[in-house]
């Protein structure tokens, strides 16, 4: 019939019009600044730097290896290496960044920096609104703005953060064990040396030292390949 | 001669002169609409309401738009508008001036007749009645003419594909 489609369409829009007043689930609009959509766990936006403990300077995991700086496709990361060293997350003395800048107005949220980082130091943030009147310096985040605690990381990406923590803990344990072995070996060595010097005037006898620390020697031989694999 | 008449006369003459004198043809047509609107105002001033509104509707609403369309379709952006007046423009201007002189002389020579001073006004009903009674034949003829003009204009202006192919 003539105009049938038009009437059908008008009925449909009228249903929408009145329905939006009656049934609230029709209105799917999220009024942004006040209301926000729930974020899925894999949400990512801009990178941030993770630090352990409470002091952002001391606990920063970044060792300033500059891999992320080199890999970053839009080249938005700028790192300056320190001259001295400080212990890293595992406890090894490492360099640390004196300057670590990310220009988030250039960043394209590709997550490549996170994937290449060998130290679990850079991760993706979920914060997406950085309203500012200055689009240059206000969007160039420095080290202090980028540093966020591990607790925050746990908060935004719990599963991932737990996995990272477990890996780090294992590593730390391995490192600790290794350190202990090394220390024990050194101590045994020293002890043996003193024993030898005291009992025999010359002629080193490693065989004499061996029985003193059999477990430590075995530990060392086992720990070495494990550590090498990890790094 | 009232002030209103003088203003309207100025509008008409200025619009017409501009329409014939401007360089850009589109400007000419726009000036022409001023002139047409002035003529419509003159009709209203003279009490011919119906004719005045018809004037606006036909001339401003149709003829001017038609002319504008024709100009847009024939005017190429590369056209160098070197001379807007023809080679022997002087003859034309002279002829027009002579015509105006003769008509003006004739008008002013005419003794001023005491015209009927009763207010002239004809209602739309009267116009309709005379269109349908006294002037029904001219009306039909004009209707036929307009139909013929409509069809003729379409036929003339239509770009026939076979002509293009030749």
């Amino acid at each position, binding site marked *: 019939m003539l105009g049938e489609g038009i009437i059908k369409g008008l009925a449909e829009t009228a249903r929408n019009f009145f329905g939006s007043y009656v049934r609230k689930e029709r209105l799917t609009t999220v009024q942004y600044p006040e209301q926000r959509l729930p974020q899925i766990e894999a949400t990512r936006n801009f990178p941030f730097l993770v630090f352990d403990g409470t002091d952002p300077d001391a606990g920063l995991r970044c060792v300033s290896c500059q891999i992320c700086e080199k890999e970053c496709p839009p080249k938005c990361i700028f790192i300056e290496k320190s001259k001295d060293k400080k212990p890293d997350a595992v406890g090894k003395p490492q360099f640390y960044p004196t300057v670590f800048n990310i220009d988030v107005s250039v960043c394209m949220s590709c997550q490549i920096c996170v994937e290449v980082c060998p130290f679990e130091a850079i991760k993706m943030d979920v914060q997406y609104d950085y309203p500012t009147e200055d689009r240059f310096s206000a969007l160039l985040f420095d080290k202090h703005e980028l540093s966020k605690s591990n607790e925050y990381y746990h908060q935004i990406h719990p599963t991932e953060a737990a996995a990272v923590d477990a890996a780090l803990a294992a590593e730390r344990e391995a490192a600790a064990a290794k350190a202990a072995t090394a220390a024990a070996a050194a101590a045994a060595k020293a002890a043996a040396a003193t024993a030898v010097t005291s009992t025999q005037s010359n002629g080193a006898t490693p065989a004499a030292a061996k029985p003193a620390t059999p477990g430590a020697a075995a530990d060392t031989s086992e720990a070495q390949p494990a550590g090498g694999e990890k790094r | 001669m009232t002030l209103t008449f003088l203003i309207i006369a100025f509008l008409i*003459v200025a619009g*017409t002169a501009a*329409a*014939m004198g401007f360089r850009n*043809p589109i400007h*000419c*047509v726009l000036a*022409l609409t001023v*002139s*047409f609107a002035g*003529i419509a105002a*003159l009709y209203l001033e*003279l*009490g*011919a309401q*119906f*004719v005045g509104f*018809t004037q606006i509707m*036909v*001339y401003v609403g*149709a*003829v001017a738009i*038609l*002319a504008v369309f*024709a*100009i847009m*379709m*024939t005017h190429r952006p590369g056209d160098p508008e070197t*001379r*807007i*007046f*023809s*080679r022997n423009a002087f003859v*034309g201007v002279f*002829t*027009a*001036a002579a*015509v*105006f002189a003769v*008509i*003006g002389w004739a*008008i*002013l020579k*005419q003794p*001023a*007749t005491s*015209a*009927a001073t*009763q*207010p*002239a006004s*004809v209602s739309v009903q009267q*116009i309709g009645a*005379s269109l349908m009674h006294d*002037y029904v034949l001219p009306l039909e003829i*004009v209707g036929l003419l*307009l139909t013929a*003009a409509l069809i003729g*204009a379409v036929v003339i*202006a239509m770009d026939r594909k076979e002509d293009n192919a030749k």
Partner: protein
Amino acid sequence: MTPLQACLLLSALLFAIGLAGALTRRNAILVLIGIELMLNAANINFIAFWHYGPQPSQTTGIMFAIFSIGVAAAEAAVGLAIILAAYRHSRTTDLDKMNSLKG
């Protein structure tokens, strides 16, 4: 000068300007517009004579003007169509260049 004479003079001036334009302009469309202006001048005369004439209650002058407007509209439509057709043929609306009858 009586009002009638003023109206007639105005229309004569309009006619003269239209004539001058029609005779001197090179653009065919503007020539047509000049002719339209001359028709309008004639219309002003009809209305002026009707208004200041002896019998303003008669509709004759108005009828004349209305029919004249109708004819002018038809003339404009056909005239512009002819100009378009001529343009398509000779690729110009310059009357000084349209100087050949050969198709």
